[in-house]
């Protein structure tokens, strides 16, 4: 059992949860969280926002029953954590852009700490949150509210681009990466997928991802994939 240090509301439906304990994990990995008994049935996968000496932190958006319960947690409350799971973003050299959309900014904060000097692009549909925490970590910080933050990213000027956000954004990032590669510039674009999961460890095949070399698991082979490997069906 883990203990809540704080659970701060940042914006409409967006919370920042800090959990006490000795937790590890790499950029882009996630934990399965559970703060209830039998129902809802499934634990909730949340990517690591930050790991430090105090514990581990998460940024989440209330979308259903599970995250609603998480939002009610108060300092001192208990919850269960299993993890870290998954294969996260690679440690890279060169010029890096971190691009997040909405709650997709969650795993990028840890990336920003691990890869100082990255350019950071944060996009929000209605209300920005947590942007000031990113500012000291960024070579340049771009914040966009209500538009398409990807439009601000010059794909040809980076060696590596990490993207996490809604499905259409990931698909658009894949296309932009391909276009830059076709023009002779070759950024490696990595996408963090946010698929539904049941087990989180690779047993249930609920989070299956169609890839060029066959079916892969978002939870165990990902959630981070090279953009070119993923086949988007819609």
């Amino acid at each position, binding site marked *: 059992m883990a203990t809540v240090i704080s659970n701060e509301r940042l914006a409409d439906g967006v919370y920042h949860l800090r959990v006490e304990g000795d937790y590890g994990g790499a950029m882009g990995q996630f934990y*399965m969280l559970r703060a209830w008994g*039998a*129902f*809802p*049935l*499934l*634990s909730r996968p949340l990517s690591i926002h930050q790991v430090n000496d105090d514990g581990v932190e998460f940024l989440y958006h209330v979308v*259903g*029953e599970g995250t609603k319960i998480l939002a009610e947690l108060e300092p001192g409350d208990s919850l269960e954590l*299993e993890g870290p799971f998954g294969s996260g973003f690679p440690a890279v050299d060169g010029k890096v852009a971190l691009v997040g959309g909405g709650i997709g900014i969650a795993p990028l904060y840890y990336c920003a700490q691990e890869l100082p000097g990255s350019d950071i692009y944060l996009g929000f549909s209605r209300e920005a949150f947590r942007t000031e925490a990113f500012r000291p970590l960024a070579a340049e910080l771009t914040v966009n509210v209500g538009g398409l933050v990807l439009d601000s990213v010059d794909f040809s000027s980076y060696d590596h681009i990490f993207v996490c956000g809604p499905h259409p954004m990931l698909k658009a990032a894949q296309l932009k990466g391909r276009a830059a590669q076709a023009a002779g510039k070759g950024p490696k674009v990595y996408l963090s997928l946010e698929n*539904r*999961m*049941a*087990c*989180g*460890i*690779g*047993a*249930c*095949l*609920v*989070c*299956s991802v*169609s890839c060029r070399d*066959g*079916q892969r698991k978002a939870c*165990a082979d990902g959630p981070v994939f090279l953009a070119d490997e993923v086949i988007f*069906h819609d």
Partner: protein
Amino acid sequence: MINMTANIAGVHFKNPIIMASGTFGFGREYSKLYDVSLLGGISGKGLTLNPKAGNPGVRVYETASGMLNSVGLENPGVEAFIVKELPYWETLDTARLVNLGGNTLPDYVLGAELIQRDADARSAAGKPAVDMIELNISCPNVKEGGIAFGVKTPAAQEVVRAVRAATKLPLAVKLSPNAEDIAEMAEMCQEEGADAISLINTISGMKIDVRRRRSVFNNLYAGLSGPAIKPVALRMVHQVAKRVSIPVIGMGGITSATDIIEFIMAGATVIQVGTYNFMNLRAGSTLVEELQEFMIEENISSLEEIRGII
């Protein structure tokens, strides 16, 4: 001393807890969390003769006390299983059940033949092999075969007879709760030479996204599992155990030692744990420990004492 062991057609189970097909992979993933050899058995991810990519679209949806899934039997195929997974299974000290599905009758037969051939080779080499085939005629999430075989007794009879002829391995037949007459179906399996009956598979269900005005699943329907289906599963295990003389492997919504005891009292010889593996990634080790404690508390020295007492 508590005796939790069980035996089905010569296959020894150190305890009655088997991890259900589709919820446990081939055991590797959970082995990172606890020693899976403490389990009574593992029923591996459902296999078909050829690899299957499974269903597109949403594959899971939570419901009140349950879960709908539409994974659609994504699996590597029988041959890849034999090459890649069986060597790992050899290292485990637990009963090994292969769950075999199919789209057509020849698929089932060829799959069973491949498994039998491999088991023969392993036995000849003195190596552990597959202990039992669990014939899946009840997957609701594949369009051809699967459930079509599992609902009508004559169709099921044809598959069970053909597979029985194709393998000498102990054979359990996994039945669908959607069968027209579950007890009649079980009796037929016994007559055709099945060594055990596994039940129940998921119950066909549905979830509609009212804003998008469509089912959340591409296949329209999906399989309901979890605590929501336990009363139905228990009733069916009870009905079938009263009708057949072969062992019953009971499953459906088990999440505690008392749930296990209920199934044993209803007549099950061993049980399987499915959805609970997702609720508690250490379900296997939790339940083995809880069952032992419960039996001590209730002064039950052997599962034989309570089996089928209702």
